[in-house]
């Protein structure tokens, strides 16, 4: 019998340990609605996206919680199609024409049931745009142990996607994905906690980008992006939060994620944020992000007939690069005791610079696919 099992039994045998009336139920009996507007914009007249997101959460009875989430994305602008080599042998990125506006609508719903120490949830959703449809279902369990100092989390989801492409009627493909998360959240002491999660994802089907191509130098021809028919991804994220009472109850959040997939991409992500309360109900949150990734095995900026192979891609997202980002967020919370319990206003601005030269240990293939982007978000949240 394992040590943990023996101790649990011993605890039950100690005198005076009595199970109180076990009152199941979730903590928050409030209704909440959140509305967020977000804007994403890349440099050099590339892609621009506007996102509207509405979320509502309602308690049902003593144990159930239901939530509904609606998203509308509107995208426009140019995106990279392939890289070519000019007369001098320099690589240039070629973009699509910036005329199409694409709209995506998504709906997600979930239902959860709270026992005393266990929380179960199921959910599903769909996402639809003119050339891509995705449907998914998910389930999860959360188990609080140790007087709720330790929480074990396990979730799984399955998605089924249908892919077509404007201007390529021959593309009528599908893709299935499975994702699993296994993690633990542990309270370390009165002022800090740590969370560590591992996720595993398996994808099968059409994984290429139907709008991207690769350039073959010696023949000056182009062929379509062709990626493997399956992909395995592994990520390990660790998040640490620490409270600084002396700094007016500030909190430091530090995250590190290690990512490895079987296409040859290794990536590291570091995110730091500092939540600083100032004056009554206001918080200012500066944040910093560093990301670095290795290129995929079958990625090359341009190809030759001899190294083309059956699998090939010049997608800038599979290249070796690093990204440095910084941002700031401001929030104001109003607490009340009437019908409305709390109203929160939030606004944030973030800037990210993506460069091949920012990669750690890369071969710095050049700046032809470097770009930057900024994000602005604004939201209003209310609890009843």
């Amino acid at each position: 019998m394992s040590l943990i099992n023996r101790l649990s039994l011993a605890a039950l045998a100690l005198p005076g340990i009595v199970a109180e009336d076990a009152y199941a139920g979730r903590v928050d009996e409030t209704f909440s609605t959140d509305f967020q507007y977000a804007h994403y914009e890349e440099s050099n007249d590339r892609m621009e996206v506007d996102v509207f997101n509405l979320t509502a959460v309602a308690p049902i009875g003593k144990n159930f919680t239901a939530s509904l989430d609606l998203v509308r994305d509107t995208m426009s602008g140019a995106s990279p199609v392939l890289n070519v080599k000019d007369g001098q042998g320099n690589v240039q990125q070629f973009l699509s024409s910036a005329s199409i506006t694409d709209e995506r609508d998504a709906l997600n719903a979930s239902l959860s049931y709270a026992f005393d120490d266990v929380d179960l949830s199921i959910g599903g959703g769909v996402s639809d745009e003119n050339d891509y449809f995705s449907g998914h279902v998910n389930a999860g369990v959360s188990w609080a142990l140790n007087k709720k100092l330790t929480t074990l989390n396990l979730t799984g989801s399955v998605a089924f996607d249908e892919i077509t492409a404007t201007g390529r009627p021959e593309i009528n493909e599908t893709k299935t994905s499975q994702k699993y998360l296994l993690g633990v959240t542990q309270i370390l002491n009165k002022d800090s906690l740590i969370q560590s999660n591992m996720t595993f994802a398996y994808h099968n089907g059409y994984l290429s980008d139907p709008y991207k191509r690769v350039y073959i130098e010696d023949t000056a021809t182009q062929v379509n992006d062709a990626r493997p028919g399956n992909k395995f991804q592994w990520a390990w994220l660790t998040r640490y939060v620490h409270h600084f009472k002396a700094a007016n109850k500030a909190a430091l959040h530090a995250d590190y994620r290690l990512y490895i997939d079987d296409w040859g991409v290794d990536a590291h992500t570091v995110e730091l944020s500092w939540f600083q309360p100032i004056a009554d109900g206001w918080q200012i949150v500066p944040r910093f992000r560093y990301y670095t990734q290795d290129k995929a095995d079958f990625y090359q900026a341009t190809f030759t007939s001899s190294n083309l192979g059956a699998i090939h891609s010049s997608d800038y997202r599979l290249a070796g690069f690093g990204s440095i980002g910084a941002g700031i967020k401001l929030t104001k919370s109003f607490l009340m005791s009437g019908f409305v319990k709390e109203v929160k206003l939030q606004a944030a601005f973030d800037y990210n610079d993506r460069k091949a030269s920012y990669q750690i240990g890369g071969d710095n293939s050049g700046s032809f696919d470097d770009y930057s982007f900024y994000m602005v978000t604004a939201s209003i949240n209310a609890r009843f």
Partner: protein
Amino acid sequence: MKKNKIKIISLVLILAAVSACTPVKPWERGNLALSQMALDADGQEAAFRQHTFYSKESASGGYGGHGGGCGCN
């Protein structure tokens, strides 16, 4: 070589965590209950950020799960 590096990193993290472990009584969770201490304070913003980054980068995953906070019933 990579597997050993991962084992060493995880060992260091676990040791650091264990050494900082002290039992926290249910009434001592005031600081942990603050909104700035929550892992998921703004779900909509987190979803937007993660969607943006995995659309532009290869890496994705890791996020999710409950825990921390006031531990109330």
